[in-house]
């Protein structure tokens, strides 16, 4: 039991005095003893119990209010044991058919029984401090040789002696050369078994071609491979064979991904166009100047989209005709179309007249997009427009772990380094006490009111 404001407990004396004054018999003395006895014989109402209850209610209400004011906190008998598992990938190293993480959790369960929560955290020290502040008991599981945790947190160190080799880097440089690195961990068990690094390019059709296959004799190993005709649909796979105890770093992939199309809009206006463009997949809308793939209006950009003035053009009635806009071909609209510049290719037509045309890197929308706001025509027209743009590609590697997980220093035994401190969790009872106090005092007041009304 703890108090947030123990100095207020002095008020208990005042409350006790108040109760004593309330409960003590008033010095209203009677000499009509005989008449009182007759009256008491005449009535069977022995109501002193009511008075006792009144005093009990008043006392309990005051006590609850005072304890709430003093900030009573009760130690949680079953303060939760929170297990923080280091998010380091090496905890997935298998040894005797179990991973280091599983062994750590088993050790925690064996040592402390119940576990309320298991959290996987990257920063164990920060998470432990947070949990301790929240009043939980904390045990951290990690395979690091030295784990810094706040005082009060327990530490379970898990480790293994398994040798390991893994891919630590995979990427494509600016000159489209493939870069692959591998590292290995040597343990007391002896030399790392011979492993072979394979680099394979898998086409969209599933066909594979080996671009590298060499034994991992040195560590770390870095290879730069010049690849020919690496297509956007190709997947580069780097693999170490045979697999070791820590298999998460034995394979990595490199896939081409399209960068989002950056569309630059003027600082203000073009709201209808912005909504239609933002509805497209893999787009990024920019307001104001800046490099972009498509610039609406004047400014920098790989491509530009010009929009004619709102009051220009001749009224047409009809339906859209384009690639993506075929879906809404049945939607009849009225649009004022400007004349297409000479030499421009029509991308989307409306009622037989050009609506969106292209001349080299410049697109021209021959009507006011606000006139199409609210209909499906404008987003579909934008889809036709964006289909003309070729998004830039970049290569993204998956499955590559950092060198620390692959070859960093790790513990070699499972053991409990430090015990978690006993729970210092105190549950605040202020609200419950205040509610109880209010209820008790309310009942007391009602009883007093009723007694006064009766008398």
């Amino acid at each position, binding site marked *: 039991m703890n108090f947030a404001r123990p100095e207020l407990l002095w008020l208990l004396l005042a409350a006790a005095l108040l109760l004593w004054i309330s409960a003590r018999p008033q010095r209203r003395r009677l000499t009509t003893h*005989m008449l009182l006895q007759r009256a008491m014989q005449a009535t069977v109402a022995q109501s002193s119990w009511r008075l006792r209850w009144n005093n009990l209610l008043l006392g309990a209400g005051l006590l609850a209010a005072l304890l709430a004011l003093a900030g009573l906190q009760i130690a949680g008998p079953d303060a939760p044991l929170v297990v923080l598992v280091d998010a380091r990938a090496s905890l997935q190293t298998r040894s005797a058919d179990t991973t280091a993480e599983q062994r750590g959790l088993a050790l925690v369960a064996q040592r402390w029984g119940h576990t309320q929560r298991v959290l996987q955290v990257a920063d164990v020290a920060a998470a432990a401090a947070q949990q301790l502040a929240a009043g939980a008991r904390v045990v951290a599981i990690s395979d690091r040789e030295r784990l810094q945790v706040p005082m009060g947190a327990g530490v379970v160190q898990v480790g293994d002696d398994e040798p390991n080799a893994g891919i630590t880097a995979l990427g494509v440089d600016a000159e489209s050369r493939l870069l692959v690195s591998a590292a290995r961990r040597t343990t007391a068990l002896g030399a790392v078994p011979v492993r072979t690094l394979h680099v394979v390019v898998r086409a969209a059709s599933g066909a594979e071609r080996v671009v590298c296959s060499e034994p991992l004799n040195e560590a770390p190993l870095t290879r730069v491979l010049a690849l020919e005709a690496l297509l956007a649909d190709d997947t580069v796979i780097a693999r170490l064979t045979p697999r070791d105890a820590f298999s998460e770093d034995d394979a990595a992939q490199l896939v081409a991904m399209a960068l989002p199309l950056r569309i630059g809009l003027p600082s203000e206006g073009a709201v209808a166009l912005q909504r239609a463009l933002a509805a497209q997949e893999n787009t990024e809308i920019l307001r104001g100047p800046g490099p972009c793939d498509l610039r609406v209006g004047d400014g920098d950009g790989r491509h530009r989209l010009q929009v004619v003035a709102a009051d220009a053009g001749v009224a047409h009635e009809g339906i859209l005709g384009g690639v993506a806009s075929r879906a809404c071909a049945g939607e009849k609209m009225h649009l004022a179309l400007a004349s297409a510049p000479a030499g421009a290719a029509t991308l989307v037509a409306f009622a037989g007249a050009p609506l969106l045309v292209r001349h080299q890197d410049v697109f021209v929308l021959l009507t006011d997009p606000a006139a199409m706001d609210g209909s499906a025509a404008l987003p579909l027209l934008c889809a036709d427009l964006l289909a003309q743009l070729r998004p830039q590609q970049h290569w993204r590697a998956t499955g590559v772990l950092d060198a620390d997980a692959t070859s960093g220093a790790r513990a070699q035994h499972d053991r409990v380094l430090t015990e978690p401190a006993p729970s210092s969790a105190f549950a605040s009872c202020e609200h419950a006490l205040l509610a109880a106090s209010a209820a008790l005092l309310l009942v007391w007041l009602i009883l007093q009111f009723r007694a006064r009304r009766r008398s």
Partner: protein
Amino acid sequence: MRPVFAFAPDFRARVLALPQLLRHGGTGSGAALPGGQSEFLGYRSLSQGDDLRRVDWNIFARLDQLHVKELGRGEAPEVLVIIDRSGSMADATGGKDRLSRELAVALGHLGLVGGSEVQLCSLGEGGLVTLGRWRGVKRMDTVLQCVERLEIPRGGTWLGALDHLPPRSGAGRACFLITDALVDPLPAAGFAALGRSDDAALFLLSAASERSLDAGRWSCTGGEGEAPLDLSVERNLQSAYLAALAQHEEAVTALARKHRIHSVVATDEQPFEAAVQQCLRQSGAGG
């Protein structure tokens, strides 16, 4: 330390003015002061409280001295004032005790003014005790001091001792009992003895706090020798108490009436003059 009682500073003046008040204030037609006057007995010097109408102006013209005529029915009857000193007379505020003393002095003074021999008795643990006998209006101060020196009431009620009232003199006796009559059973024999007086009156006293018993905590001292009570008075007990009080007063006055005793119910909130006035009015109405 012995408890001390003292009358109010103006009490003596009020007592001295009482005869005048009773004559002018209207005790009712036919009302008479204790003793009564009808026959010329002689002259005496004018003293404080005497009615100026009784001054013999002829004597004053001749002797240049103020004398009043004393009238009486031959020998004036004896006036017996009995004051209950049992514990129940000492209520919390002391009002009942004060009123009983004031009544005793007032009645004694009226007796003295009426030319009677006044006998003051206390009724307490020792039974019926005669505190003194006095005659003559000048002894009023003695009566007052005697009553003032009485101890604070305590102990049980000895109303039964009324059976042993001293025999009355040949001139008759007017008897006044000042009590709260808080005794069970009521002393029928004592009341019968009291009723054998020529004129008997009962002052049934109660404290105002005892007549309006409100809800709350009360303690009862057990003044009648009973165990003290500490109790909470609520509606049921309150109404039962008030019913018991009314029943008790009714029983006392009925018993008094049965023995031809005038009864006056008085509380410490009212002045003693009012109680005396009421008593004499009843006495006058009863002949």
